[in-house]
Structures are given as structure tokens and as C-alpha cells.
């Protein structure tokens, strides 16, 4: 019998090898860790986890120690005597039936308490946010403020938020690991999830879809910004206003509420609080590479005025809504009223900048698998319709104009 190596010599090596893994898990930068003490929900879940983990660790140590002891102690040797032929022991068997039952009873108490605590209706005065899962993006509504936005939530620190979850198509699952557990957005059903981000900084989080929902399930992310209450109000007040482009003539400004708008035209658009790009944590800035085969003519400058005209007569208006643009009334796609204020586009896949916006409009289906939005660029191949866009296709210049227009919608 050939022995390839002595496995027992490996045991210390393996134990040492797993240590860095454990240390790695306990230190380092884990922005999506579920163990962050950010909400009462997450604190309760972490404490539940800790209890179970300590019991689990105890069981693990007992079982594996016994196992290793048995392996070492009772290894057959040439002089091994014939073993005693015990075939059972009622007392021992009862004890290892009862002991786990007791442990489970101990775990069951905080478990059941948490179940009932977090499945009661949210406290009064909670910030209501309606979440609607779509293949593959998130629609968010703040009924209190009359806001409809997409792939981005602002939360005021310290106020309980109550998410009301629905789906427009298949089942999705709404999860912000850093803030709390997940809940599914189920078709024909309304679910709730609430917690209070009371111990968070002014920072950004990533949320994701957690129920497999088709081709771009992996690309259904969203950003969450926890901000100071005053900043939240500023953001919300701005978001609920109509899109203002082209900028109104000076004599119609009267109703605009935000003060200190300087004179030059684009800057005259009232701007509310937006989470400062410079303060965004690195992990909320998408690093998705542009898929191969997406190109755009270099050096084109878009003209927002022209873009508005092109946008308002193109397919865009059938699916997207821009409050303030009477032509743009679609509801299938994300609401674009304040698109320029968002950090990302395409279900959180790409940063919201000129280049990505242009490429996205030109051929969304080559940028993100399976999306509903047709390829629009002239001469582009639509991978779902399996045909080349000809009649009605947009030129790169037209796309640059549209992108310029959308970037005015702060």
C-alpha cells in the first residue's frame, strides 16, 4: 500500500492556514457586513447571531474534539486488543437528546421575540418608502413627499423607515445588508420591512436584489445614503419639485422656493441637497467595466436644448416620465425627473456620467444583459430583437444631445 503523504502532519499546517482567514474576516474593510450596529434591527440580529454562534461553537468544539480524540486514541495498532462490544447506553443517548433540546429552547426564546417584534406594523411617524422591484431596477416612492425616484434612497438618520415592498413583475428581494435583514418583493402581495438607522454616520450603502429574478439579477443594485435630517428635507423638497429645463425666464421664477439662485441660466435650476460625490465611500461608486463592443464617437458636445427636443420626440417618452416635460409620460422605466442628481444609472451598474449615459442610451442591451430598454443607436445591433436598428435610430450626436439634456435634470 503506497502512502502518498502523512495526513497527520497536515493537521497543524491546515489549522495555521485557516487562521489568517479568520483574522481576515474579523478585520479589514467589509462595507456590506451584516454585523454593523446601525439599526435596532441589525443590533438584535447580531445579538441573536452571537448567541447561536457561541452555542454552535461549543457544539462544534465538543463534536470535533471527540472526533479527533477518537481518531487518535482508538487507531488500530498491531497490538490493539479486541474492543469491548458496547452496543448502546440509554443514559448517554438520552443526555445527548436532551442537551441539544435545551440549547434549542434557549435559542428559541430571543428568536420568537424578534419575530414578533419586527413583524408588527412600523411605529407611527415612520418615514414611508414604497419599494417596487422591476426587472432589473428599483423604483422608490416617498408618498409623504410625492417623490418617485429609482435605484437610490436617502434616509434621514434617526427616523424609522418603513419600506412597503411590491413587485411589478417577478419576485425580487430587497436587502441593505449594512442596515438590516431582507424581505421579498412578491408579485400580488405587499410586504413590509422597517428599522431605524439611528447609529449610522452620514455615508453610503449598497443594496441588492436577493431573489434570483432573471438575466440581470446580479445587476439590480441600489444606493442608500444616510444623511442628516435637515439635508434629507432639502433633498426631498428638491426631488418633489418638477424638472426645470429649460430654465424659466426670470419673471416666472416666483414660485421657486430655494433661495440664492444666481443669475446664469443652468445654475438657475433650484438645487437641493445631493450627497457630495467626494464623500461617497469607495464601495458605492460602481467600477463595472464597460462591456466590450460599446463605442461612442469621441469629442461630441451635446446641446441640452436640442437634446430636449430630440428626447421629446423619441421613443424615450413612451417609457420614462419627467415631471415638467409634458411629453414624457411613460411609466415602464425609471422616473427621470431628477436623473442628474443620482449617483448611478442602470440599476446601480454604472456611474452617472456623460460617457456612461451616452453608451447606455446608444445600446442599453449591450451594456446590461436582458434589459427592457431597446437598443436605440443607429446601426446598433439589438441582441434581444436580433436585428440592427435602422429607421428611427439615433445618431451619436443626437444621443450626446439627449445625454446633455438629462444632465440638466439635477
Amino acid at each position, binding site marked *: 500500500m503506497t502512502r502518498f*503523504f502523512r495526513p497527520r502532519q497536515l493537521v497543524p499546517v491546515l489549522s495555521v492556514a*485557516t487562521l489568517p482567514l479568520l483574522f481576515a474576516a474579523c478585520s479589514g474593510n*467589509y*462595507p*456590506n*457586513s*451584516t*454585523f454593523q450596529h446601525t439599526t435596532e434591527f*441589525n443590533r438584535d*440580529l447580531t445579538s*441573536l*447571531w452571537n448567541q*447561536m454562534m457561541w452555542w*454552535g461553537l461549543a457544539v*462544534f468544539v465538543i*463534536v470535533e474534539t471527540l*472526533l479527533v480524540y477518537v*481518531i487518535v486514541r482508538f487507531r*488500530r495498532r498491531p497490538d*490493539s*486488543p*479486541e474492543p469491548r*462490544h*458496547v*452496543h*448502546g*447506553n440509554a443514559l*448517554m*443517548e438520552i443526555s445527548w*437528546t436532551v442537551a*441539544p*433540546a435545551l440549547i434549542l429552547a434557549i435559542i*428559541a426564546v430571543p*428568536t*420568537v421575540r*424578534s419575530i414578533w417584534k419586527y*413583524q408588527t406594523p412600523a411605529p407611527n411617524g415612520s418615514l414611508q418608502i414604497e419599494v417596487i422591484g422591476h*426587472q432589473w431596477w428599483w423604483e422608490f416612492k416617498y408618498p409623504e413627499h410625492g417623490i418617485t425616484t429609482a435605484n437610490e434612497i436617502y434616509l434621514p438618520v434617526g427616523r424609522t423607515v418603513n419600506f412597503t*415592498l411590491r413587485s411589478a*413583475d417577478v*419576485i425580487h*428581494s430587497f*436587502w441593505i*445588508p449594512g442596515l*438590516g*435583514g*431582507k*424581505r421579498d418583493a412578491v*408579485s*400580488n402581495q405587499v410586504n*413590509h420591512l422597517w428599522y431605524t438607522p439611528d447609529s449610522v454616520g452620514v455615508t453610503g450603502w449598497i443594496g*441588492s436584489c436577493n431573489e*434570483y*429574478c*432573471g*438575466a440581470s*439579477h*446580479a445587476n439590480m443594485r441600489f444606493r442608500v445614503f444616510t444623511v442628516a435630517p435637515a439635508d434629507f428635507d432639502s433633498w426631498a423638497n428638491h426631488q418633489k419639485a418638477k424638472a426645470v429645463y429649460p430654465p424659466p425666464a426670470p419673471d416666472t421664477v416666483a414660485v421657486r422656493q430655494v433661495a440664492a439662485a444666481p443669475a446664469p441660466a443652468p445654475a438657475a435650476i433650484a438645487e437641493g441637497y445631493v450627497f457630495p460625490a467626494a464623500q461617497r465611500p*469607495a*464601495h458605492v461608486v460602481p467600477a463595472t467595466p464597460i462591456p466590450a463592443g460599446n463605442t461612442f464617437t469621441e469629442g461630441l458636445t451635446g446641446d441640452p436644448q436640442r437634446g430636449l427636443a430630440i428626447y421629446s420626440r423619441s421613443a424615450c417618452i413612451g417609457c420614462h416620465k419627467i415631471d415638467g416635460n409634458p411629453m414624457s409620460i411613460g411609466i415602464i422605466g425609471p422616473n427621470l425627473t431628477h436623473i442628474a442628481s443620482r449617483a448611478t444609472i442602470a440599476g446601480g451598474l454604472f456611474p452617472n456620467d456623460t460617457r456612461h449615459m451616452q453608451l447606455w442610451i446608444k445600446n442599453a442591451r449591450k451594456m446590461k444583459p436582458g434589459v427592457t430598454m431597446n437598443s436605440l443607436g443607429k446601426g446598433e445591433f439589438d441582441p434581444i430583437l436580433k436585428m440592427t436598428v435602422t429607421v428611427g435610430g439615433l445618431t451619436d450626436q443626437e444621443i450626446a444631445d439627449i445625454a446633455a439634456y438629462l444632465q440638466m435634470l439635477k
Partner: protein
Amino acid sequence: MATAATAPAYTSSESHGATGLMSWLTTVDHKRIGILYLHTSLFFFVVGGLEAIIMRYQLMRPNMQAVSAETFNQLFTMHGTTMVFLVIMPLSAAFFNFLIPLQIGARDVAFPRLNAFSYWVYLLGGVFITLPILFGLAPDGGWFAYAPLTTRTYSPTQNMNFWVLGVQILGVSSLAAAFNFATTIINMRAPGMNLMRMPMFTWMSFVVQWLIILAFPVITVALFFLQFDRFFGTNFYTVTAGADPLLWQHLFWIFGHPEVYILILPAFGLVSEVLPTNSKKPLFGYPVMAYSGILIGFLGFGVWAHHMFAVGMGPMADTVFGVTTMLIAIPTGVKIFNWIFTMWGGSLRFNTAMKYAIALIGMFTIGGISGITHASPPSDLQQTDTYYIVAHFHYVLFGGAIMGIFSGIYHYFPKMYGRKMDEGLGNLHFWLNFIALNLTFFPMHFSGMLGMPRRIYTYDAGQGWETFNLISSIGAFLMAPAMLVFLYNFFKSKKHGEVAGDNPWDAPTLEWSIPSPPPEYNFAQIPMVTSRYPMWDITHPERTAEIPHSTKGWDEARHRSDEHILPGGGHMADMAPAHIETAAKTASELDIPMPTPTIKPLLVALGMLVMVASLLPFFAGKTSAFVVLLAIGAGTMIYSLYDWLTTPLEEAH
């Protein structure tokens, strides 16, 4: 180890009269069908493993573009479907087939031709569901195929049809086999082998057959609903028509959770054979081991909704299913401790089978502990559908079921082929596999709890998951050489392995009392059993001294044989107290009637497959192709079935 090892006087194929392809296509011998199951499922194991390796390559680093989203979704759907329906279940079936009649002292299964039919349906169904991946048409809805994603509205292509129809076909195979084995175990045990004397593998298999019989009809109904929705425009899962999409989830998991125990209990059974044999001790707490298996099976039907803690079932349902799920940990824990104390005080021989058996105990415990953390519904809300779950069920299914099955393969290989597998290569295979398992799946606990969802084909950089994914991928790549070592060892040892003899491991149960490989009739004389360990009663009476012995059941068997024939098909004269058989006569020399080989079960299976596949052109609107295929398929099936049912099992001789 006392048995003098001599070359077997014959091989099992020679004993069957015929060799060559036709003999395999027409066989109704449970041992050969078991070997067919084994080879086929090992093939699918390689396929499912390759799918996993491609996925791990894609996830090795963030934002990789090795495969497209669509391909990745097909890969994970098929990896899950393959490993569950085409690998672990049929690997268990290989052992059901090969072992159950041998362990209970029977000459065959209750319905030999139905047994062949089960295999052919499995093979054809497996090919049907696997082949499309070569054309990018593989199912892409996940292995639990949640509606409404899998309805025609959201999956308008043929892809999911292969899954809906394929799993339905595979269900036919499982159900037919389950009825067969349940009947075999109930009716064909040797005289004296009452239920509490059955080998533990047969016990666990018995529980599994009932789980299959009770669970598969539920998935059958769920699949028919989906099939009718997709093909005939019904609205069971159509959300725009008001359907509740949780209907599918409930139906699927009422099947799906017992399915987990269908996958793990046979491995538990195999390990319960390997541990006592290699410890020179009887199984510790045999009755409790049997009861806990039954209890696991029973409780397994009351926990399904723990897969659905995030869907919003309400606090009462969450509480009930959380608590029942925790309860399952109790009988499982009992098994773990009983195994350890089977070894305690023993004299342990560390062959490869033993190493795998011990690995099951160690690894399954990890899967069990992580399981408790998501038996708690609130805690599960941070875990479900993340990589933590992926880690959990791979510790259970790879660290549990697959480890147990490898243990069984090394242990029973000598009985199947008369030769041992090479221990050196086995050792290498074990350690490669053991390291690869932990390297792949342990880091997934971290990536999951650090926020990584499962079933994503890509992830962004900077999320804190890079290191863990890299380690997982390296571990997965290491599984390929492990499997290659195993396959080399397997095929080499069949021809050139050390000749094993009848009872190379000095094991206690009936299958070791006959030659290796066994003759087609298994037992020349049906053994009459007085205890749980008939072989040790003969070779090591001191080991079974404390276990009750009696001839209970013998008189009844004698009485019955006066009137009819014995369970197992023999006559009165064929019975004898448990003994070691060495004779190598043919069935006809011994005047033992054997079922006639027949191609009909294969034809019925083929007809059924064609009939079911005719729905594919129907889906595409090609009505004439549909009608032609349907006619050919249904015609072949009905004609062959009629022919089968009107032909006697045994030719007069």
C-alpha cells in the same frame, strides 16, 4: 481479513450468461442496474462539477466577463439540478439497487423490470435535461424554478421547458424505484430479519423510499401546473390573472425539504455500515439510529417554509416553522454522537471508506450548526439567498451526502467488482477532496455574511468579497484533480485492483456472506437470520454476544413456504441458517428461476421521452411535428408496455 483472497471464479457479467452491449440494455439484474446507475451518475457528477468550475472561474475576481449572464444563469440552474436529480439521488439509487436485496437476503427486487425502467427513464431524462446546455438552451430559472419567473411571460424561450419536462420525467423514475424498493424491503426480507434487524443502510433507504413516495407527488402537481401554464395557457402562476406566486414556493418546498433528507439519509446509512465494520464494534444505539432516521424523515415534512422566511408569511408561520426546523437538529445530533460512540473504544482501521465516513461526521456537523443559525427566522433574514446559504448546503450535501457516498463506493467496490480500490490513490483522493471542500465552501460563510447575494454572475470590486471568492475558486479548481484521481482509481481497480475475496473488511451483514461479485441469484440458499449481524455471529460471535438473538420469524417463513414460496423467490429447500456461500454454480444448475432479460422497459422509457419531448415543437407552434412525435412516442410506449405486461417475468426452464 481472514478470508484467503483468490480470484473470483467468474465475473458478474459472465454469470449472467451474456456480455456486451445488448446484455446491459436488456438487464433486469438489480446488481447490474446498480452498476449502470453508478456509472451514469458519476458521469453527471463530472458534468455538474465542470459547470461549477466554470462558475467559480467567472467569480474568481470581480467584474469578470468569462461567461455571459445568460450562460452563468444556465450554469447554476443546471449545476443544482444536475447535482440533486442526476448525481446524489441516483448515486443513492445505485446503492439501493446493488445493496438492498443483498442486505435483506433476497434474490432480487420486487419488480425487476420496473427497476430497469426506472434506470432507463433516469438516463434518458438526464440526457434530455443536460444536452441543451451545449446549445445555450439549458434551463435558466434556478434549480427551484420560482414562478412567476419561470412562467411563459418571463421565460418565453424553450429553456425552462427542458427543466419542467425533464424533472417530471425524472420524478417518474424516482417514484417507480421508490415503490419498488419499499415493496422489496417490506416483503422480501430473509426469514428472521425483522425490521429491527435490518442493516442501517436498508433502514435509511426504507425511510427515503417513503419520503420519495410522499414528496414527489407534490412536485409532480406543481410541475403539471407550470407545464399547463407554459404550454396550454392556464393561469396557476400567472400574476396578471391574480395568481399567488407563493403557491409554487409552498408546493416546491413541501417536496424540496424532504428532498434534502432524500439526499442525505442514504449517505447516513452507508456511514452507519462503514463505521461499525472498521471499528470492530456494533453500531452504538441501533434502535435510536433507526428511530432518529424515521423522525428526521417525519419532521422533514413539517419544515418546508423555512426556505421562505423572507417572503412575508407572517409571525405565526415564521414561529412554527422556525421551531420545527430547530427540532430536526435533535435527531440529527443524536446520530452524530451515536456514530462517535460507535468508534469510541473501538479498533479503528483507517481505510479510505473510513476516512470519508469520519469526514461526513465532521463536515456535516458544520453544516448542521450553520443550519441552526438560519432556523431562526429573524437571523435568516440576513442569511437567506446569500453565499452563507451556499456554504451551508454544500457542507450538508458535499460534506455530508457526497462524503458518505464516496465512503460507500470505497467500501462496496470490492462487493461490486471482486477487487479493492487502490488505498494509496484513495488516500490522495480523500485528502485532495477534503481540502478542496473546505477551501471552497468555508470562505463562503464569510462572503455571505459580508453581504454577497447568491446566484449573481458578477460582483463589483471593493465590496469586501474579493479574497473569499478567490480562495473559493482555488478550492473549486482543486476538486478537478481530486475527481480525476478517483476516476483513474475506479477504472484501474475494476481491472487490476487487489483481489478482495468475499468479505474483505470483515463486515457484519448478509451482503458479505456471498461471493464478490455476487452471482446473479445472490443467495443459493436464503439465509435465516437470528440477529442484526449475521456475519459476525459466524466470524466473531463475541462481538454480538450482547445483542438479542432469536429465531423469531423462522417458523412463519417455513409455514409460508409450505403453502407458497419464500420471500425472495426460493422454495423451502432453499432456506438455511445464515452461512457463508462460496459455491459458484449458475442459476439453472441450482434450479433458481431468474427473470428473463428484456428490452421492453427501455422501449417504454424511450417512448415516454419522445412523447413528452413532443411538447417542445408544440411550444414553438409546430403542430405537425408535435403530432408526429406524440404519435410515435405514445405508440411506442403503449405497445411496449402492453407487451411487457403480457410477458411473464421468468421464462420456463
